[in-house]
């Protein structure tokens, strides 16, 4: 009888007309190599949802970094280029200047964007290059397995700060969003997260807004996402999201840092 009821319900509900969520068609139907619970997967998913909903799959070119998300091109069903470590913003500049009518985005980790790629990021922002930078801040070098990133917070342990980051000798955690926001070429800067259902919803909206601003030609848009790295943090996915909430977000507060006035 229990069983039966279930059957009825399922039969009843699992029908196309009742569908309320499915994997976006723009996300290629393969396993993602990311670790269980990794924010990269989540961001890939919601960004591809945005691309699908805006119907721009054929009008967007992406740049993947060197980092765990180097393989973004295996999952995002759009034209993509893989950039040398840190140079995504230079590569995107080359693309956007050649194809000004297309949407262009880079997807970069914190080591890629803020360490080796600091200059390309700074100058693309300062030139007001009209593309979107999706900046995954997980406070660590994931792919190379756990070294300190520019964003690693004070005292945080990593394989190259085994006794905790000592700001006296290793420098301070870089707040890229706050650093770039004041530049006149920068149109939109926001910091989001994907560690809770509500944050995922907000992050998705931010990504969509950024693409709309690009359409309007407003300039450089940066969407920072405070993310996790359960594997290198040596935490369960659930704990890692808790760490994001309780430790990272207080240091990297969420919300819009710069928003363009849009004349309607």
């Amino acid at each position, binding site marked *: 009888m229990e069983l039966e009821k279930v059957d009825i319900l399922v039969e009843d509900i699992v029908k196309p007309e009742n569908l309320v969520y499915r994997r976006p068609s723009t996300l290629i139907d393969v396993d993602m190599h990311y670790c269980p619970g990794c924010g990269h997967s989540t961001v890939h998913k919601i960004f591809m949802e945005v691309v699908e909903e805006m119907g721009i799959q054929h009008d967007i070119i992406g740049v993947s970094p060197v980092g765990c998300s180097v393989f973004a091109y295996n999952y995002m069903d759009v034209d993509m280029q893989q950039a040398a470590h840190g140079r995504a913003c230079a590569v995107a500049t080359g693309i956007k200047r050649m194809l000004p009518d297309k949407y262009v985005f880079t997807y970069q980790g914190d080591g890629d964007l803020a360490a080796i790629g600091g200059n390309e990021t700074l100058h693309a922002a300062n030139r007001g290059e009209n593309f979107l930078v999706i900046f995954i801040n997980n406070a660590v070098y994931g792919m190379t397995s756990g070294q300190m990133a520019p964003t690693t917070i004070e005292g945080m342990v990593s394989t190259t700060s085994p006794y905790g980051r000592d700001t006296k000798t290793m420098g301070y955690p870089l707040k890229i969003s706050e650093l770039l926001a004041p530049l006149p070429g920068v149109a939109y800067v926001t910091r989001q997260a994907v560690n809770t259902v509500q944050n995922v*919803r907000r992050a998705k909206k931010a990504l969509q807004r950024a693409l709309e601003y690009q359409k309007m030609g407003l300039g450089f848009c940066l969407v920072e996402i405070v993310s996790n790295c359960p594997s290198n943090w040596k935490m369960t996915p659930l704990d890692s999201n808790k760490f994001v909430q309780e430790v990272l977000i207080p240091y990297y507060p969420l919300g819009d840092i710069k928003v363009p006035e849009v004349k309607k």
Partner: protein
Amino acid sequence: MAKVVGDVVIDIERCKACELCVQACPEHTLALGKQLNHKGYQYVVKINDNCTGCVNCAIICPDAVITVYRKVYKTKQEVPA
């Protein structure tokens, strides 16, 4: 008063057993099962029928494993007991 009934379909081979959906589900409908999938993960299963189709699990799931369906039954309409 309307009753909302939902259901989820889990692509078990894609699940990495991160448990984010388990925590995200307000109805405690999901939990890690006993079986391993080919990747060696103890994939998530449904453990009750309380799903309301709120899509929280699907939204939090990094790997887009969960498809969600939902139906609203008007009071008039007869709800399967």
